[in-house]
């Protein structure tokens, strides 16, 4: 299968992996004072912290599983870099949805994940991408792009906004997505996965996990 088409498939929000339940914590951010004006900066903060960790994790999971290894250490490295239980839970929920879909489309892709009770989305996506033959750069760009689209499409549901403005934010963030991919594409070992934390996003994610007034799960 053509790799570019596979990347399109995996990046498509119509893929049934519960992407519509995610806001990239922007719902909580907007509830706690972030304005739509701040969204481009918020995207950049994510791409340089939590999303960088996620992309690095996926790239290393891809590398390890393609070499015939198991991604347990990779998933553990991700968990140690994700102190917020709410963020871990959100990622594991998405990991479960992606595993469910991949189990139907590419069952052999999941072999390295056997024995991991609740792998992160990054670990699952990296493993699946490796099975499909996607390169590390494509994988990292996919994660960065998906994060940006997740936030921007969530903002459209939460705040009155011209959709073209949100698309403009996505387009403007693309160089930052490319930079993220360059930073992680060559990683091969768990210890080298970036560990940039974002205490503010963690605070928002935890607050969101316990509120009943929400549109998005995370």
């Amino acid at each position, binding site marked *: 299968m053509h790799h570019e088409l596979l990347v399109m498939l995996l990046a498509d929000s119509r893929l049934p992996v519960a992407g519509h339940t995610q806001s990239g914590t922007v719902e909580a951010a907007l509830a706690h004072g972030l304005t739509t004006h701040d969204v481009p*900066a*918020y995207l*950049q*903060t994510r791409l*340089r*912290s939590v999303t960088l960790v996620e992309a690095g994790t996926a790239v290393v999971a891809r590398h390890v599983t393609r070499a015939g290894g198991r991604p347990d250490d990779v998933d*553990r*490295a991700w*968990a*140690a*870099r*994700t*102190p*917020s*239980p709410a963020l*871990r839970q959100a990622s594991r929920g998405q990991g479960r949805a992606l595993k469910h879909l991949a189990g139907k489309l590419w069952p052999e892709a999941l072999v390295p994940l056997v024995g991991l009770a609740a792998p992160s989305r990054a670990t699952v996506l990296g493993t699946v991408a490796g099975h499909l033959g996607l390169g590390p750069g494509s994988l990292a760009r996919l994660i960065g792009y998906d994060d940006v689209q997740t936030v921007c499409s969530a903002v459209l549901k939460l705040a009155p906004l011209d959709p073209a403005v949100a698309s403009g934010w996505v387009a403007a963030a693309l160089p930052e997505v490319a930079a993220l991919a360059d930073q992680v594409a060559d990683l091969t070992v*768990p210890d080298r996965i*970036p*560990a*940039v*934390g*974002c*205490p*503010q996003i*963690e*605070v928002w994610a*935890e607050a969101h996990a316990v509120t009943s007034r929400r549109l998005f799960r995370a």
Partner: protein
Amino acid sequence: MLTSTERVGRTRIRVAADPDGGRCQVRTATTASDPTVAMLRPVVVHHDAAAARVSLVPEGALLLAGDAIEIDIAVDRGARLDLVEPGGTVAFDMRGARARWDVRIRVGAGAVLTWAGEPFVVAQGADVSRRLEARLDAGATLALSETLVLGRHGERAGRLRQSTVVTVAGLPLLVEDLPLDVTTVPGLLGGNRGLSSVLLAGQEVAEPSAPASHRYDLDAGGHLWRRMGAEVHESTLADVWGTVRQTVG
């Protein structure tokens, strides 16, 4: 700044239980790359069979451009060390140069290290790399309290690269980098100046006494409490530290 122009002040503390049940053994050493180096002098303030209490007393002006503070702490199997600081630390304007503050911790099985850190203030113009690497054997306990302040009152944030690696039995428990400066503080800290944290590794606080707010239960066990505030007193975790100290015993 070139490494060769660094002034290295190294502090080593090692605590071991006495095999005959007497007072625990406390060995301390300091090494300076030149006589004018600022460093932390370990002062034993209490010392019995169960534990040692050591105060890290600054000697000379801390923390200035070119300062390289290295602190190596080892608490051997079954021993206990309580570290305190007589006051906070200010990293001053370094006018384009840098300083570093590296802590290496090793805690053996059944051993306990508590460290009640005082505020670490990164003044406008300061540029500090601050690393913590803690390796715990299975059954070891580490309780660590710290407060970071980005800029003194009315100042902009200085630059701080805070790097933390905590492992238990060789497996990562908490790995985090916080590249903090005037450009990243709005996004990473919501524009707050103060960031307080209490880490408890190797033990868990029993419910319901565990303070729930600001608490992150780590995936591999233990807890991190973290609180941000526009002013330092708004981010205090003093009550949490009290609970953690009780838990550790």
